[in-house]
């Protein structure tokens, strides 16, 4: 390797974007959290019966 450029974490352009986009992102985060809360409210109905036993006895053969 002739030259080794200084490694950088991110380009300046991206850092600018960050500031602009930040509010939208937290909204997304809030919405996603609300979705998960809804799912957690109903999780017992969705969960496999005896889910803990099921996962304990879940064994597969190696593949590929």
């Amino acid at each position: 390797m002739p030259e080794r450029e200084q490694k950088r974490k991110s380009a300046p352009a991206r850092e600018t974007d960050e500031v602009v986009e930040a509010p939208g992102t937290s909204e997304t985060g809030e919405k996603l959290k609300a979705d998960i809360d809804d799912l957690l409210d109903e999780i017992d109905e969705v969960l496999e019966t005896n889910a803990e036993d099921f996962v304990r006895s879940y064994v597969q053969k190696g593949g590929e």
Partner: protein
Amino acid sequence: MALHKVLGIETEYGIVVRGVGESNPVSASSLLINAYVGELERERLAGPKVGWDFEDEQPGNDARGASGPSSPPDVETHLVNAVLTNGARYYVDHAHPEISTPECADARAVVVFDRAAEEIVRASIVAANRLLPDGQELVVHKNNSDGKGNSYGCHENYLMARSTPFGRIVTHATAHFVSRQIFTGSGKVGVEAAGLSASEVPYQLTQRADFFEAEVGLETTLKRPIINTRDEPHADAQKYRRLHVITGDANCSETATFLKVGTTAFVLSLVEDEALPKTFQFRSAVAAMRQVSYDLSLAAPLELVDGTTITALELQWELLDRSKKWADERGLDTVGGDVGAQVLAEWESVLTSLERDPMDLADRLDWVAKYRLLEGYRERHGIGWEDQRLAALALQYHDMRPERSLADRVGLRRITDDDEVRHAMTNPPTDTRAYFRGTCLQRWASQVVAANWDSIVFDIGQSSLRRVPMMEPMRGTRSHVGTVLDESADPAELLARLNG
């Protein structure tokens, strides 16, 4: 000049029969697939009464022809191996049901056909359960590990130029496979690598990183290598190689699948065009693979042979920047045109969010979606990571049953729509050789005695069978053979016209 990146993925699903003491995974897998194929035949929706032709895989084997899954779906134990009218292969591999997508011309098509494969599995479960006694049912997971040290794969395939030196592929592809885990991971509770405990690694990004023990090699089941050297191009071997990638997780998130294959198609194109001037050689790629998977902060410094370090995120930014430059100079033709542009945009967007707050990607990446779900459950119940209820939730994330799947319920964004997925269950892509394979099966299944990736064998009532080679993955498309197929009344006429 980079070759068009023809690509596809093969997924092995986890399988158990619920309601019996210990289920036999081989017969369960056979039942699953035979039930589906049998149902298609009865409905005359398609005629996958076709055996897989092993000729190019194990020379000396006869085409299986009529020994295909033509009998009624009973609890059979012979290893079924069917070619579907969408150009896919559906078969039992070791102790797992496996579907290989047809050859696709871009990353989005891979997502569509991977989704179609999931729907085929779901239809298979329903068909198979009708044949099981009351109290028994098949449970199928799209995952890669049982949490007890056993792993099975989701492999990717990319068409590459034979002329590209393999050593160059190894260096750059390794850097990508190690670092792309930050968006390809499906998330896993605990750790299965020897010598580590769940208290040290309560949750990690990927299902697969624990199982890689070598940097380069031919194995896929033992001492798995990061770069697999299987050289079976299923195409003209003078011109092509097929890079067989075994490091990836099976994804439930469409975005994750899209980026996994889309970014890799870019990186491999850049390798062919020598557009990656910097090399990143890890001191230990195997260690780096695990380091990335175990580090939820995405900040782990990975040691390079030159004594410097780099993080997975930094490496991905470098690969993205080079890909954008390459696209500006060379265009996007080999990576799917507009789809290639979407890959670049999504890649940048995901890296930006990973840098800022990975939790914002709970609607796009599996490892984040699963983490958020488990973390929410943990908080609500005040339990630790070692609690079996979390392991149960994590497993059920991958459950293929619509009434149980948690991946379906965490709000993941879709790239595909239901109609195109349903269409792709029985119709091939139009822009690769899969079009020829799938269309012949749709129209003339009774005269197709066998098929595989690079040929199709017809019985047109003559003394010998007729094999049509398909050594060029980008020929046999609708624009190439659509008219000939449409105008031929039967395979005999088709063969006459193809030869004429």
